[in-house]
């Protein structure tokens, strides 16, 4: 009875908030439904097979990749595709599609233990763990310990985890079934201390990706099911399986990190009987995910929009844009969803942008400007992001003619969202 009322409430609030133009209604309806029935998430996932994706970076894209891969054989899959990754967002998505027998849910790092307990998920993908929104999560090691306890209490859950991130390995190490994937890790600053004994982790620099704790406690990179390889002089990526199979990972999405996420999804798909080749072929059809990497016209200027919200994500994206020479707009906010403390700007290797024409924008453009000043990156400051995009389009530097076709725009969470919603 309570369950029925909760379903009706969720739908009604969703419809109302959509009608009032207050967004997709994904969170408001779910929140209302959970008020009526706190067990709503448990009831909505009963009888469905649930896969959860969590980690600091890449959650939204990987969720989309997994939903597409698990639907490769034509099965109906329900997913919280908009990135609303807390229980109200899960509830809203699940209410909207009651028929699908398979649910693929992106989960906020802090909420993973709760959502795992409520859904009894049969599959969990763990991508990476690093500092993000420190004013909210405080300590990344605490998150790893909570994951570890939650997974130890879920013996029927198959875990697919990144073997190259020691904090993820610590978290997944207590799980009963794990498939390890050599997905890489570009940012090691949060991984230097052994989570097992407080010793020091050493990473091999011979390209093998091996790492181990120096203290001899035995904590080390586990043997992997598959690993990501750069081939043909860096132009293509392959997934190499321990049993000798190899598949090219061809995506329309840019970046090494997206190929790593696709490899984890391919390994996950195999655990439920879908061929890795079929899964990868399905993923290769995706053009963009929730606006990330999309080409958008903003104020008449063609732009490529990218999201980076913490040092690890920035590190990956700066590698990606380092090849370009055109102007770059960087937009930084510090609103609630971003974390109120932009100290992390000093962990980002902005030095790599030296020589680029850069515009600093967003609520916290002044914080960014000081950081760029000390990174020797010449830049202009323009607090309004759209004006910033315009400014960038008319800038040239020594290497770049002024008639560049596309302006790269990187924003952190709310800065990206704001630009995504801006008028063309």
């Amino acid at each position, binding site marked *: 009875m309570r369950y029925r009322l909760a379903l009706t409430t969720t739908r009604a609030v969703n419809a109302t908030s959509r009608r009032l133009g207050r967004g997709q209604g994904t969170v408001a309806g779910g929140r209302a439904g959970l008020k009526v029935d706190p067990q709503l998430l448990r009831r909505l996932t009963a009888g469905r097979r649930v896969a959860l994706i969590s980690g600091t970076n890449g959650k939204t894209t990987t969720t989309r990749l997994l939903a597409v891969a698990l639907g490769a054989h034509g099965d109906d899959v329900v997913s919280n595709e908009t990135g609303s990754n807390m229980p109200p967002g899960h509830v809203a998505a699940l209410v909207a599609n009651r028929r699908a027998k398979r649910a693929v849910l992106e989960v906020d790092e802090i909420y993973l233990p709760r959502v795992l307990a409520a859904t009894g998920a049969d599959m969990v993908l763990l991508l990476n763990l690093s500092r993000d929104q420190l*004013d909210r999560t405080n300590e990344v090691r605490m998150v790893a310990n909570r994951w570890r306890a939650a997974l130890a209490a879920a013996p029927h859950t198959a875990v697919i985890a990144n073997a190259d991130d020691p904090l993820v390995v610590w978290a997944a190490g207590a799980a009963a079934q794990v498939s390890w994937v050599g997905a890489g890790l570009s940012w090691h600053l949060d991984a230097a*201390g052994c989570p097992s004994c*407080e010793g020091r982790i050493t990473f091999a620099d011979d390209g093998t990706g091996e790492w181990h704790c120096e203290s001899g406690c035995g904590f080390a990179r586990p043997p992997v099911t598959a690993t990501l390889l750069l081939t043909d002089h860096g132009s293509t990526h392959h997934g190499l399986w321990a049993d000798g199979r190899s598949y090219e990972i061809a995506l329309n999405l840019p970046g090494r990190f997206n190929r790593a996420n696709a490899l984890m999804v391919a390994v996950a798909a195999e655990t439920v009987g879908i061929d890795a080749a079929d899964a990868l072929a399905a993923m290769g059809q995706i053009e963009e995910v929730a606006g990330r990497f999309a080409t958008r016209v903003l104020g008449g200027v063609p732009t490529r929009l990218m999201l980076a919200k913490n040092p690890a994500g920035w590190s990956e994206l700066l590698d990606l844009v380092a090849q370009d020479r055109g102007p770059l707009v960087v937009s930084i906010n510090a609103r609630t969803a971003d974390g109120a403390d932009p*100290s*992390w*700007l*000093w*962990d980002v290797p902005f030095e790599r942008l030296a020589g680029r024409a850069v515009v600093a924008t967003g609520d916290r453009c002044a914080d960014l400007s000081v*950081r760029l000043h000390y990174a020797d990156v010449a830049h202009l400051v323009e607090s309004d992001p759209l004006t910033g995009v315009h400014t960038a389009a008319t800038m040239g530097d020594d290497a770049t003619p002024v008639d560049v076709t596309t302006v790269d725009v990187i924003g952190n969470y709310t800065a990206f969202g704001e630009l995504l919603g801006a008028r063309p």
Partner: protein
Amino acid sequence: MRAPLRVVVVYPDLLGTYGDGGNGLILTRRAQWRGIEAELAQASSDAPLPEADIYCLGGGEDGPQVRAARALIDDRTLVRRADAGAVVLAVCAGYQIVGSTFPGADGTPHEGVGLLGLTTSKGVGSRAVGEVTAEVAATVLAPATLPTLTGFENHGGVTTLAEGITPLARVTRGVGNGDGSGTEGAVTGRVMGTYLHGPVLARNPAMADLLLAWALDTDASALMPLDDSAHERLRLARLGPHRAGATGRKVRHRVRRRNDR
């Protein structure tokens, strides 16, 4: 010709949670931009701490914080160099470990490095998280002065200064030391500790120049002025027009007690 100024970021593998490496970078660049030869080094916790003129200690999580304190005590370089007049800037967890005792994850006290006469214990209630504004009284660093301090804090510890130890500042916004005295940080000789974490010097360039002046045995006012327009924009954004003066020339000593706790 003097030897290059050596700036060392202490144990970034353990103490670097909040972009704290920025302080070492800012000090080094501000020296170099003035034509003063300066070297920046990141000192990993698995090697002896190098000799330096300025040491920067950052924030860290509970476990790494305990290991950093242990390593610094065993290594002995930091205490020896500080006794010999080296400058120390210690923020957040680094501030706690340069005191006499600080709490581990479970609250049990651990021995600190002992550069500042203060003790830290686990606070009751929620962590102190948010923006901080604080005023440095004219007597604290005399004859030097500092304009309004601005920063961000995120700590669960409560720090109590020993009798006679000078607090760095008095909070007008935020928590600071959190012991009910309304104070923030501490300073003894050339050792400065503060809860204003991460790149505190990005928001307070005058503090960077004061530390540089100490290390160079000169007066901050004798340092060549730099183009600080980026800093000034940031201070204006954080503090508003009344208290943003970055140069320290228009210091206001008025102490507000409204937020003392």
